[in-house]
């Protein structure tokens, strides 16, 4: 349904007045989501998750340089197709309260371009479903808690009759029941035939509803795996970073990986994980590993087998 092939995003910046330099943020990303499938994209903060969402929606800032191909239903997702799909088939659930118009009440905001009593009733029932009281419709964004704001944002996707939903960190700040409800709503959308791209840094929550997981590191997809492969000690996982993420969870030993995620610019010609990799080998110096298919998933590592 949605196919992303070789997507790279960088930001043009002028250094020293005239020289233009491109700062890469996403590098050669391959992803695909089928109808009825929920793909979770997990990665820590700053790995480029939000930019991936905005790139698909065609809403990157003007100084962004985009390469690669995004297609939807077999057609290239260009500006003219996007203009037809945005607000209809394609929906984005953005990251937080700053995406709500501060001068517009929540109920009106959820309605969007829709008008009429029937639409208002739908808003009310969707709000109720996510545990938003009726008064919330009359509230301005600054009066909503972070969790309530995200519920309003999730409601917009559940309302619009979308065929493909991109949810960018939809649950932080919600109480556990509401968070579960919001994720469940996304799962139901997928079960109803929608394609869903769930972006999150909470791998545990994502695994409860996802079919497949793509792991993002320093602007690159380092692995795609079936959700069920995240289990036990994580030994069926393909990439050492996926394994490290998994083992850092409290239930799996709480072993945090030392070091920090580099910026994509620093690792342009080598494996982006090399500096932190516990299994780095001689052959890793051969340059940047490509994303290759492996055991039904994919991995960006020279060594994995």
């Amino acid at each position, binding site marked *: 349904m949605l196919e992303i092939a070789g997507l790279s995003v960088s930001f043009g910046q002028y250094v020293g007045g005239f020289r233009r330099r491109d700062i890469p943020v996403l590098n050669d990303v391959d992803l695909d989501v089928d109808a009825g499938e929920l793909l979770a994209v997990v990665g820590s903060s700053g790995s480029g998750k939000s930019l991936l969402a905005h790139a698909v*929606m065609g809403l990157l800032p003007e100084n962004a340089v985009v390469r690669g191909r995004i297609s939807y239903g077999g057609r290239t997702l260009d500006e003219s197709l996007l203009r037809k799909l945005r607000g209809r088939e*394609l929906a984005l659930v*953005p990251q937080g309260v700053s*995406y709500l*118009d*501060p*001068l517009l009440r929540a109920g009106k905001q959820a309605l969007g371009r829709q008008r009429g009593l029937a639409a208002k009733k739908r808003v009310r029932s969707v709000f109720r479903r996510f545990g938003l009281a009726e008064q919330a419709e009359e509230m301005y964004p600054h*009066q909503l808690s972070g969790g309530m704001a995200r519920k309003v944002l999730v409601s917009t996707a559940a309302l619009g009759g979308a065929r493909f939903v991109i949810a960018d960190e939809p649950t932080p700040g919600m109480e556990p029941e509401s968070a579960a409800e919001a994720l469940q709503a996304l799962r139901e959308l997928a079960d109803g035939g929608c394609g869903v791209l769930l972006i999150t840094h909470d791998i545990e929550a994502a695994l409860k509803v996802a079919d497949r997981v793509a792991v993002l590191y320093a602007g690159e997809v380092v692995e795609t795996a079936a959700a069920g492969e995240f289990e036990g000690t994580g030994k069926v996982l393909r990439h050492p970073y996926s394994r490290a993420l998994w083992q850092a969870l409290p239930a799996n030993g709480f072993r945090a990986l030392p070091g920090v995620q580099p910026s994509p610019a620093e690792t342009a010609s080598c494996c982006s994980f090399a500096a932190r990799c516990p299994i780095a080998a001689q052959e890793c110096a051969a340059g940047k590993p490509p994303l290759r298919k492996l055991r039904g998933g994919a991995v960006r590592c020279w060594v994995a087998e």
Partner: protein
Amino acid sequence: MEKLSFSALLRFVLLKLARLGLLLAAVSAAAFALVSYSPIDPVQAYIGADVMRVGAEQRAAIAAYWGLDEPPLARFFRWASALAGGDMGTSLIYRQPVADVIGERFWGSLLLMAAAWLLSGVIGFTAGIVAAMNRGRLVDRIVRWYCCTLASTPSFWLAMLFLMVFGVWLGWFPVGLAVPAGALAAEVDWLDRLRHLALPALTLSAVGIAPVALHTREKLLDVLDSDYILFARSRGESGIRLVRRHGLKAALLPALTLQFAGFSELFGGAVLAEQVFSYPGLGRAAVEAGVRGDVPLLMGIVLFSALFVFTGNLLADIMTRLIDPRVRERGMPK
């Protein structure tokens, strides 16, 4: 949740009234001090060309009649206590109560200022919106060029330019006075009034457009770069409707605040424009009062203009609270 409590409203009103009282007291004291150091002798100014026929005795009598023989401080307190009783004194040059002179003259100025205020507000706001929606394109550059040029042009110079081009060369508009010279009041119809109003109002608004346009443009650009515009776009909103739904209110706020807070520039501009176009309003009365040492009238106008500017600022303040829910919620008092 957003309801204003009555006590909060009362506190707001009392606070503003106290501020107004202080402002008027300070302004009148300062103005009086300045006037009493003025080199203009009001008696001399009053006598004017009759100077040869008026003897020293008569001068003293006139001075005593106006109370000009007392020391300044005593005069100030006499003026202030009369004012407290509602009496603004009598104008030396018009020989009428100051309140009447101001009342008469203010309507001319009000008409002029209202016309300029509306014109500059509407044109400035529209220009700002159009510029922001076309950031970096030709329209945007033209609007910015206009604003920067106007900002560095003295308004009296612009007034004279307008007078020369439209009044003298093109002959589209009359060169001066609010009504045709020598016409009877009844014969002065609205069209004539408008024609006399046009040039001063245009001059005054041409200067006022720049700040409104630039601030509106700036604000709308901020809004257009915001996360919530990105979200609105992701939901298929675009173009003018996007701006109308998410940008207008936000951009209206600085524009309105600026327009109301700009009453002082408006008044100052009107004084100049009335002078250049010999338009008989309060501004011209102020200049005459200053030049001819008419202290009661000058003080009256100073107080009145302070009140006028204060009202503008108050309106700006209230407007902010009404439009922006974030400010509204914090309640009326600052």
